């Protein structure tokens, strides 16, 4: 796909009835923005709490598996919410977003965060029973926690630079 084809596709998206509704339907845009913020709170709030546990906070009190069992579902709902509302708002101003210098950063950081999740879950997390509670978390898990917190923080910053 050439750059011009991509531009035409984005223009088509902007002219779609979905994009038109996002731009002009009464209260829809502020509602999408509000749900996007709520999704960020659920996603990043719960993720950072898990990251803190992986970094050793409350390690003598809270098993890692308890934290992940109750918080990761919240982060998944949050992620779903930000993706749906984010794509809807993107459709309204697709070309302006695509032309922004912050866009590749935001997308890139989300991809790095995603890779980090896969590496963590299919890697060191398999041995979580060995360091669930009353134990230092392995270096790999702590590194994953730092990457996670940095990526999501960076995504929020990039998102604000992207925002109209």
């Amino acid at each position, binding site marked *: 796909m050439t750059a011009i084809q991509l531009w035409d596709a984005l223009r088509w998206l902007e002219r779609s009835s979905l994009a038109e509704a996002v731009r*002009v339907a009464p209260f829809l845009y502020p509602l999408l923005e509000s749900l996007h913020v709520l999704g960020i709170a659920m996603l990043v709030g719960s993720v950072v709490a898990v990251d803190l546990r992986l970094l050793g906070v409350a390690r003598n009190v809270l098993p890692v598996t308890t934290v992940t069992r109750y918080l990761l579902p919240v982060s998944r709902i949050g992620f779903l919410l930000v993706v749906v509302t984010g794509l809807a708002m993107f459709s309204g101003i697709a070309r302006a977003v695509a032309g922004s210098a912050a866009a590749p*950063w935001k997308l890139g*950081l989300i991809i*790095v965060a995603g890779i980090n999740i896969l590496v963590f879950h299919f890697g060191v997390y398999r041995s979580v029973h060995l360091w669930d509670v009353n134990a230092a978390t392995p*270096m790999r898990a702590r590194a994953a926690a730092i990457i996670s917190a*940095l990526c999501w923080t960076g995504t929020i910053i990039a998102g604000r630079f992207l925002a*109209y």
Partner: protein
Amino acid sequence: MAMTMEGNTTMFLKPLLMIAVIATLVIATQPPRLAFAHHSWAASDTRYAYYIAGTIIEVRWGNPHVEVRLRLDHAAVPQNWIKRPLPPGADAQDGRDTMISTRAYTGGLPELDLTLAPPDWMARWGLHRRLEVGEHIEAVGFLNVNGGDEFRPVMFWLADGQGVWQKLLPFPHRPEPAPASSH
């Protein structure tokens, strides 16, 4: 065994960690070069206000901002410019300073992209309908600090003389008075 695992991990995770750190640092340290901040005036050179007039050739009405492409007349600043009343809802100081700073646009571009307030704010400032292709408007505002064809009006006027205020947030720099011959 533990040593080996630790070694592999470091090899695998270090690049990822570095990407994240670099990405965050780069974003955090280079705001002025990003084409951001339509919400604020940070991307506009608010020292010099320009008068433009022309015909609307494209409108994208709606949130988060109305955008209009204007084919310019390359008109001079009108007679008695300074005496023109500010639009309803205008901030007196900012409006006056912008009027005093106004000079004719001599940038040479045939068309400019105007970033305007969203519909709700348009209505609060007295415009209760869409702008349409083919309408003639006048505007005074600022160009982007990085050049290009983006123009941010502080206020604009419809063909029937109705003025519409556009400014909510503070200017990063006060508008400087235009040379005496400009008006």
